[in-house]
């Protein structure tokens, strides 16, 4: 187990370097990083040359990348466009987005798996058909449309929630945004669980469990569900990274000042350090989540051993 983790951690290094280098290059293509520093005016040549020298932008890209990564590993993510430290921005933004992601994941687990189990056990019945249709509708409407409509209906027309989230962004305020963020994945979790349950229902071990007289509840939870959850856990695990990255849209709709908001501002103002810094952390989250999923396999399926 320990050796497996170490090997996986080593394998993460090239992927981490590659992804951050890719995003570094993309941001460099994005435009002149000092253009935003002189306000709305164009910097004059002398100032811009001096600024370039000050920030090390006159060096080749690979050297800039190395310098940047060197700083990152000492905990220095640079400064944002307004002179604030990027790490300070992260300290305010990440807790909000993490709360939003937790709400979304909870929705996926609780509602998605429940609906999946119900439909998987009643395949072909009216419940199954209607839930399946609903998932298709949710998948085909873009998230931002779902978000705008829910915001209009719940927030403006019926007044159940506040249409925009305050800067505190408490769990209570994030319920509807979390549902919006989760919506598409929720539909996938439902469908994936349904397929998996329906497939395993016919398996020998379920028949054995029923034959030896176990109560239905126990057969479903301990035997059927545990075996059917493996693909679902994979999906949810990889979804953590996707949700945090995809929160840009949801955060924009509900005016949540999280990671997506800061990234959007960073991109608008062409602030390289904000964008690369946040993306670096997001990539790390994605990689770690994937590793955890692989380790969870062993818990769900004891046949898997990590040598």
């Amino acid at each position, binding site marked *: 187990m320990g050796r497996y983790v170490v090997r996986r951690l080593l394998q993460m290094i090239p992927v981490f370097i590659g992804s951050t280098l890719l995003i570094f290059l993309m941001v460099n293509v994005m435009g002149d990083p000092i253009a935003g520093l002189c306000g709305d005016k164009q910097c004059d040549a002398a100032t811009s040359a001096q600024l370039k020298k000050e920030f090390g932008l006159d060096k080749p890209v690979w050297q800039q990348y190395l310098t940047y990564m060197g700083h990152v590993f000492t905990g220095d993510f640079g400064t944002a466009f307004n002179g604030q430290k990027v790490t300070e921005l992260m300290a305010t933004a990440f807790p909000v987005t993490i709360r939003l992601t937790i709400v979304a994941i909870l929705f996926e687990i609780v509602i998605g798996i429940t609906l999946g189990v119900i439909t998987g056990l009643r395949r072909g019945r009216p419940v199954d058909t209607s839930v399946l249709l609903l998932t298709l509708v949710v998948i*085909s409407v873009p998230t*931002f*449309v779902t978000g705008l409509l829910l915001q*209009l209906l719940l927030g403006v027309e019926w007044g159940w929630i506040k249409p925009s989230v305050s800067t505190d962004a408490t769990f209570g305020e994030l319920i509807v945004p979390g549902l919006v963020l989760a919506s598409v994945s929720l539909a996938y979790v439902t469908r994936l669980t349904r397929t998996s349950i329906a497939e395993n229902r016919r398996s020998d071990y379920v028949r054995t469990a029923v034959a030896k007289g176990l109560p239905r509840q126990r057969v479903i939870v301990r035997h059927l569900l545990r075996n059917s959850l493996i693909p679902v856990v*994979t999906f949810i695990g990889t979804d953590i990274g996707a949700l945090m*990255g995809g929160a*840009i849209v949801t955060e924009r709709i509900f005016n949540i000042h999280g990671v997506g908001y800061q990234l959007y501002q960073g991109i608008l103002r062409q602030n390289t350090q904000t964008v690369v810094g946040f993306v670096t952390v997001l990539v790390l989250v994605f990689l770690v989540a994937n590793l955890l999923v692989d380790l969870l396999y062993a818990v769900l399926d004891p046949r898997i051993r990590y*040598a």
Partner: protein
Amino acid sequence: MPEPQQPEGAIAGTGMGGAMDLAVSEATTLEAGRPDGSGPAGKPRSLWSDAWRDLRRNPVFIISGLVILFLVVISLWPSLIASGNPLKCDLAKAQEGSQPGHPFGFDGQGCDVYTRTVYGARTSVTVGVCATLGVALLGSALGGLAGFFGGFWDSLLSRLTDIFFAIPVVLGGLVLLSVVTSSTVWPVIGFMVLLGWPQISRIARGSVITAKQNDYVQAARALGASNSRLLLRHITPNAVAPVIVVATIALGTYISLEATLSYLGVGLKPPTVSWGIDISAASAYIRNAPHMLLWPAGALAITVLAFIMLGDAVRDALDPKLR
């Protein structure tokens, strides 16, 4: 105990939204290979003719196929059902509701929503089809070759796809497309191909690896068939099914992604007429004039739904496990 084999594609995260992730994990159950082909008449049938026989009887396939056919026709000849000009607007009529001759009402600039919705189909279908073609060709070529030859290039490609998967798509779009000033569809399509190919390449690779272990491939190799002959005649026809399924479903998600990028202000730009542009323009007026948002959004949802259902139907028909 051997190390657990990651189900190929199951770790496909952050791809083009969730739709493809699921498509991947479901599509990998497709066995790339011919079934034994003993039909009821005892006459051998190929996987494809078998699948086609199933599809013709599947109402989901027929309905989604008809919707897609209709979309293709109106993207080629929008004037068939909309006589107006999508760029001809009358500010005096801004935000007005349904009127005779203008069933969907007017948008914030006073343009006819019906005409714009009809003309928007062309852009969305173009983006979807071109991005999917690009992704499918590039992805299956790279993934297929890597799977067939193995070795160094294969490991390199696998690491490369890992790298691309770690980057959230919407974020990549924001960064790359924020500098684009062109109002054509090509930058958006190019971006989708750039970030989308690893998805298909992973599927194609797995599928080619399965297919190349088949006895008939070994036999053909023993008879002296060249690599290109093996790939083109024996492996490709038996490995292409999962790629087709995932690509069909991906087409829907690309259309949806275009709308999302346009909403974030980095997708297509006016004067291009597209559902994404119209929806994001309408989002500012959603309280007073929700009809402006509902019509293009409805058209978009139906289109995406049609492609997802078509992909589902094709997968069911091609999956021998369900027979």
